[in-house]
């Protein structure tokens, strides 16, 4: 198959040859590798890559992926990083409107008519900048002779991949891992990987998040080899029984490779006691079923107790082939007959924040230090919950939340704000995904990828279908996906508040954003049939966060109210050198001559962009400390 640039225009083509999403477990060759977090099966490709920038698709080097292409004119770029922050393309911050507002007239394909394919909309778009990346590499010796795939952890926004001149695949969904099998074409030495990244595709309509609009390979790239027997997916299902004391443990493994050897599954508590120890012959599916555990130690924010799962795969001679560790907790979330959300049988209160991934110098290409610093800030200020607004985060963040007892609302990569709201008014005439059939599979795929990748994380209490995308049949389908696959979590979606006709089919909880305290109380007084939360509240732009007590006091009056997520955790501002003063200064929307912009609206954090707290933080610490 050859790559086709027309896929950029087609909402029904969003993954080509991309491997199915699976659990985010790490795997190792032995215990020592686990201890040092250094798997023999992984080869990291981050670093300097060759790079060519094109202002639009017509100006790109179409043949750059071919093995005889002379790339001596290419520059270099750091992977991961944002193309814009390397000063190839203009920075732009825009909130609800689409980034080509006032520049290009477009409508989403098929939104207005089933015949309206909007051909060339992006494949020939004047604003569609292109990054062409080349990476030459030799395969590490420990990966040679094995099945090898490549994993891109995050690429905005549409990507074509070639290896040694052969087309490998195409992917969208910027914020989830994209994996492709390289085995047919990979060599031990002198491989040439070519990645072509387009800033815009039909995905741009559903990735219209309130943020700086970047593009590029902004998260890590790794080669992953598979041992000859390999666990492709694990699905851990720890269940807390109705007495909130005992546990039932299930795990399903999907295996790839040869059907030989054994799988040993063990579960340990924190004292090293073995609670489960089962060995099964390797098969395409291996299950540990309904193991009853008396008096399990429950997981919550105060006591994020995790059990250790260890999976060993051994060949027929007993040699260790693959080792998979995973830490999981027992916890139970539900809504009781009084419409109160319970965690482990106790009322759940969300003292939450929305968190964009942000670093003042690196944009969304954040570092592990950024993540651990944010967790530290959460703990220090009684923040017990995070909404991954408005896309899935880097994988380590989910592990950090498990370890630290941070309740997570794991949101899909979906926001189509510009298609249904104009200048504050609801105007959904060309809304997507809406109920447009051609936009169904792409959003359900995003729900599936989010679920399959992160399903084992104890910290996730809620799946969120996305942000500010109105509602229609396609969001119903996303809701159905989660309901069908996961009965251990609740589903959240705020946008349905504009479309009451979908209320019974979307979202387990009633969620509004920025509803003033008096109106929250109106809802709560009226014997609500769904528990209530604010997925965004206390808008922390500039000098703000006044009146928080009015929300917090409602928690004492109404058990159906279970709190909310402050908007938001950290200012989106960029640290740049001011040519006038010579100082390093913070810049926001519009500061790069970027128009249309939403200017300082990029700065709504409890933290300044340099990760120092705003003065309001002491207020948050106090009020969030009242219902810890």
């Amino acid at each position, binding site marked *: 198959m050859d790559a086709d640039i027309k896929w950029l225009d087609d909402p029904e083509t969003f993954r080509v040859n991309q491997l199915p999403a699976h659990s985010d477990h790490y795997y190792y060759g032995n215990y020592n590798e686990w201890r040092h977090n250094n798997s023999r099966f992984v080869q990291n490709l981050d670093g300097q890559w060759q790079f060519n920038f094109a202002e639009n698709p017509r100006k790109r080097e179409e043949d750059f992926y071919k093995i005889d292409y002379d790339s001596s004119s290419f520059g270099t770029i750091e992977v991961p990083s944002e193309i814009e922050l390397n000063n190839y393309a203009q920075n732009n911050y825009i909130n609800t409107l689409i980034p080509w507002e006032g520049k290009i007239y477009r409508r989403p394909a098929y939104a207005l008519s089933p015949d309206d394919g909007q051909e060339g909309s992006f494949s020939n778009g004047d604003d569609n900048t292109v990054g062409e990346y080349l990476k030459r590499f030799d395969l590490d010796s420990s990966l040679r002779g094995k099945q090898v795939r490549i994993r891109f952890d995050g690429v905005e926004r549409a990507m074509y991949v070639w290896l040694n001149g052969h087309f490998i695949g195409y992917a969208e969904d910027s914020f989830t891992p994209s994996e492709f099998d390289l085995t047919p074409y990979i060599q031990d030495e002198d491989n040439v990987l070519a990645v072509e990244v387009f800033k815009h595709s039909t995905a741009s309509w559903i990735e219209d998040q309130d943020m700086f609009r970047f593009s590029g390979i902004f998260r890590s790239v790794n080669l992953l080899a598979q041992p000859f027997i390999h666990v492709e997916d694990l699905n851990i299902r720890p269940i807390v029984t109705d007495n909130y004391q005992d546990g039932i443990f299930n795990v399903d493994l999907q295996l790839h490779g040869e059907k030989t050897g054994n799988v040993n599954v063990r579960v340990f508590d924190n004292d090293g006691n073995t609670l489960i120890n089962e060995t099964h012959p390797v098969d395409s599916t291996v299950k540990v079923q309904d193991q009853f555990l008396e008096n399990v130690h429950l997981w919550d924010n105060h006591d994020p107790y995790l059990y250790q799962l260890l999976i060993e795969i051994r060949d027929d001679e007993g040699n260790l082939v693959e080792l998979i560790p995973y830490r999981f907790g027992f916890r139970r979330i539900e809504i009781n007959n009084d419409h109160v959300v319970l965690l482990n049988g106790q009322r759940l209160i969300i003292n939450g924040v929305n968190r964009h991934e942000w670093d003042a110098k690196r944009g969304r290409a954040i570092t592990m230090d950024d993540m651990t610093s944010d967790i530290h800030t959460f703990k220090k200020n009684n923040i017990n919950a995070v909404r991954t607004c408005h896309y899935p985060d880097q994988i380590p963040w989910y592990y950090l939340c498990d370890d630290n007892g941070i309740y997570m609302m794991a949101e899909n990569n979906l926001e189509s704000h510009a298609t249904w709201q104009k200048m504050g008014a609801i105007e959904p005439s060309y809304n997507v995904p809406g109920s447009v059939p051609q936009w169904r599979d792409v959003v359900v795929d995003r729900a599936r990828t989010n679920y399959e990748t992160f399903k084992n994380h104890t910290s996730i209490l809620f799946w969120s279908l996305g942000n500010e995308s109105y509602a229609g049949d396609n969001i119903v389908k996303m809701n159905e996906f989660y309901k069908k696959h996961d009965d251990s979590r609740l589903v959240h979606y705020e946008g349905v508040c504009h479309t009451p006709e979908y209320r019974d089919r979307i979202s387990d909880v009633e969620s509004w954003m920025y509803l003033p305290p008096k109106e929250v109380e109106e809802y709560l007084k009226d014997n609500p049939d769904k528990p209530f939360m604010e997925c965004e509240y206390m808008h922390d732009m*500039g*000098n*703000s966060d*006044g009146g928080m007590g009015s929300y917090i006091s409602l928690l004492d009056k109404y058990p159906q109210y279970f709190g909310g997520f402050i908007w938001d955790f950290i*200012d989106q501002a960029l640290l740049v050198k*001011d040519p006038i003063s010579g*100082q390093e*200064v*913070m810049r926001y929307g519009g500061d790069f001559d970027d128009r249309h912009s939403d200017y300082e609206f990029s700065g709504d954090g409890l933290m*300044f962009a340099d990760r120092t707290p705003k003065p309001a933080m002491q207020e948050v610490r106090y009020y969030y400390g009242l219902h810890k």
Partner: protein
Amino acid sequence: MAYTNKLRVIYGDATLGLSGDGFHYIFSYERGGLESLKLNGKEWLYREPMPTFWRATTDNDRGSGFNIRSAQWLAADTFHKCVGIDLTVDNQHFAELPIAPITNEFSDPVSAENVKIKYTFETLTVPATQVTVTYEVNGYGEIKVMMHYYGHEDLPSLPVVGMRFIMPTVANGFDYQGLSGETYPDRMAGATEGTFHVDGLPVTKYLVPQENGMHMDTRALTITRDSTQNNADHSREPFSLTIKQAEQPFAFSCLPYTAEELENATHIEELPLARRTVLVVAGAVRGVGGIDSWGADVEEQYHIPADRDVEFSFVLNAK
């Protein structure tokens, strides 16, 4: 000493001078206020303290249109119209300001135990209302400042009601007894009470410069400087001014900029070089709000309604 705990009164032809042990004050008849506040030879005033009614627009103010609805308070904050001065020395009330020839018969020195001078301002609003600022000085050099805002129902809600002092040089820092951090009426529950030191005059680095640095419920404040504009003053020894509450605690901010200077900048680095100290002592402070930044108003109990009188006081050079 004959004049211990007594003020020496200097009847000038455009000013009234008051001095005592370690202090010397000059009240101007022409400039609408206290022109000089000198303690131990160090000047504390760059210009006369004036009533202040504006705060640099916050993002929430802008989003809710408060700055537009209440814009006339910006004019009232920028320009001041003094319409009357009323002087009482001990029990003697002067129907007319005491300059020559009235004072030609006075002797020097004249002493007094208590001097009260009241400035009346007409606000540059439509309609106008009145504000009085009364300075009452005792023999120890303590100045009790009383401000009274006369409510008027046809005026828009106020950003702040206070007095603004501009000091000639940048302070080294300040110490206060009150609440931790930056606080506002609707954002002070999380603060702890105590005594706090602040180094320098930090401006909270909100992306767009705006109202910042307020401290609610303050009992005492000491500002420390080590420089003056006096060319003959070669000392860099630190010196301080202490302000204490009178009947009630006060709110204050101590920054290098006026509200107008903050208002003019779209980024921190556009603010002028810090060269003075701007102290606002406030009797009423509007909340900052937080419901949203595109329309929601500050909760009503944290507004400053224009139709209600505001009266507050504090003591300068408190002992």
